[in-house]
């Protein structure tokens, strides 16, 4: 991440501006601070997801083409360690960038975000969910290379339906159901309920939102890991991880 500092600045600039542009559009030509507060955690998750996808899918494809993916696996360590290292690096980069980008927005628009001790737990669950999704797309990209060209579309849709654009309770009922299948949506919605409607944790649990968030994160991570690792193992077996 540090060696790509020159890229980090436009990265941050892009994320920041994109969020402001979206809020500017929704505000009909002005930015509404209260709406920014409601959407901020969605934006945070979008940034993490964006970079995780970029690193786990686009960067893995780059390495496939240049042949360094195969080289990185010529190690006495099992391939799972390499995959885990790559994932942790991608998520760390996403998390750091997302925190900086969110902090800039908070500073610029004087957004007030309350704190509750339960929120960090939800943040961890959301990160696990996004990590699973990045693995899933990265694994598919190893098998279907052309996925590289639609990563931007996947990232765009993630932003549209995870609550970055508008809170998901505004969506029509059917779209709320669809949105809940997307990574990070459930976690972001629970965070919004906790922080902006002062809902007690017990209520969120008994309403099923919190158990569903945990289930979604667990299933997404397990699925993503199986697909990604399956693609790596298959590539090693078939010799198809090179250019």
């Amino acid at each position: 991440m540090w060696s790509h500092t020159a890229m980090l600045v436009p990265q941050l600039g892009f994320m920041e501006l994109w969020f402001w542009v979206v809020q500017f559009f929704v505000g009909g030509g002005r930015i509404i601070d209260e709406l920014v507060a409601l959407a901020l955690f969605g934006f945070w998750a979008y940034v993490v997801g964006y970079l995780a996808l970029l690193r786990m899918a686009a960067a893995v494809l780059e390495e496939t083409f240049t042949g360094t993916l195969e080289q990185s696996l010529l190690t006495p360590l099992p391939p799972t360690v390499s995959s885990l290292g790559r994932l942790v690096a991608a998520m760390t980069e996403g998390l750091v960038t997302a925190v900086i980008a969110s902090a800039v927005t908070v500073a610029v628009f004087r957004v007030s975000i309350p704190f509750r001790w339960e929120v960090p737990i939800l943040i961890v669950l959301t990160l696990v969910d996004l990590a699973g999704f990045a693995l899933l797309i990265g694994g598919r990209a190893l098998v279907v290379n052309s996925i590289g060209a639609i990563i931007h579309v996947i990232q765009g849709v993630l932003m549209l339906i995870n609550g970055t654009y508008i809170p998901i309770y505004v969506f029509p009922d059917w779209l709320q159901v669809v949105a809940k299948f997307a990574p990070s949506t459930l976690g972001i919605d629970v965070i919004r309920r906790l922080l902006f409607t002062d809902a007690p944790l017990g209520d969120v649990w008994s309403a099923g939102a919190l158990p569903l968030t945990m289930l979604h994160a667990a299933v997404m991570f397990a699925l993503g890991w199986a697909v990604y690792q399956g693609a790596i193992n298959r590539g090693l077996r078939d010799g198809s991880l090179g250019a």
Partner: protein
Amino acid sequence: VIPAHARAPRGNVALIVGNEVVKGIQLGWSERLQILIEMPLFVSFMLLLGYTIGTGDQILTTGHINWTLDAYRAAWLCLGIGAYTFVYLLVQKLFWRLLTDIQTGTLEQTYLSPVPPWVHIALGRPLASIVETAVVVGAMYGVTSTVVRLEFEWRLEALMPVAALIVGGVGLALMVAGLALVWKRIEMLNDLVLMLIMFFSGAGLNLDNMPVWSLPIASSLFLTHSIAGLRTVMLDGDSLAIGGTGGLVWLATTAVGWLVSGVVVFKLCEGIAQRRGTLSHY
């Protein structure tokens, strides 16, 4: 030493450009599944944008928005987002395929061709991308019209803003391609530029609602005038004016200006990459 392209018979140029176009279309065909995936996503993006633009206060006060679109608003947005999508896909396709060529080393091979290298990148590839992108945007229109009522005036005059859109779009794509030759990892910059162009061009939000300081930037963009021209002809049923936003003068000036700038940037960057010997270094 005589460069290979200096020895090429002139007839070969058309053949090679034609081959490049065919290759690009074949590549597009091989990515038909990806294109099929892209299409509903772009339509969803456009519709969600249409429903939610300007609803901020309503969301805060009532917690609901009206999920309907009137025909004029839908058509207005379809023209703006459709034109933007065309440019977006044109630039993205060219960029990602060029990047693949750089990564796999096949880009250097195109420099062994008897025609000048820019012919491949500046002519053949954009032509192929234009064909592919036009199909995608056309299909987007078809899919959108099944969801919301779209009423357009189909007149030949609309070909002028479409031509300006293509010419200006190729210019922008060449700029991005040139920068990719030198700096390679510019996908984020690429996305940033495309986003700014969407914001300033009035693709989603009427220019009247934009801040005053942004209007000179909007005027300098080919996309602003192409979209305004398309809306004038296909939505309002009027003829293109000589001056003003979307007028003939602005259409021609910005389209040619962006194309020339694109060629200049591309040639400069290509020269740098060749001097450094980094056409295939990644």
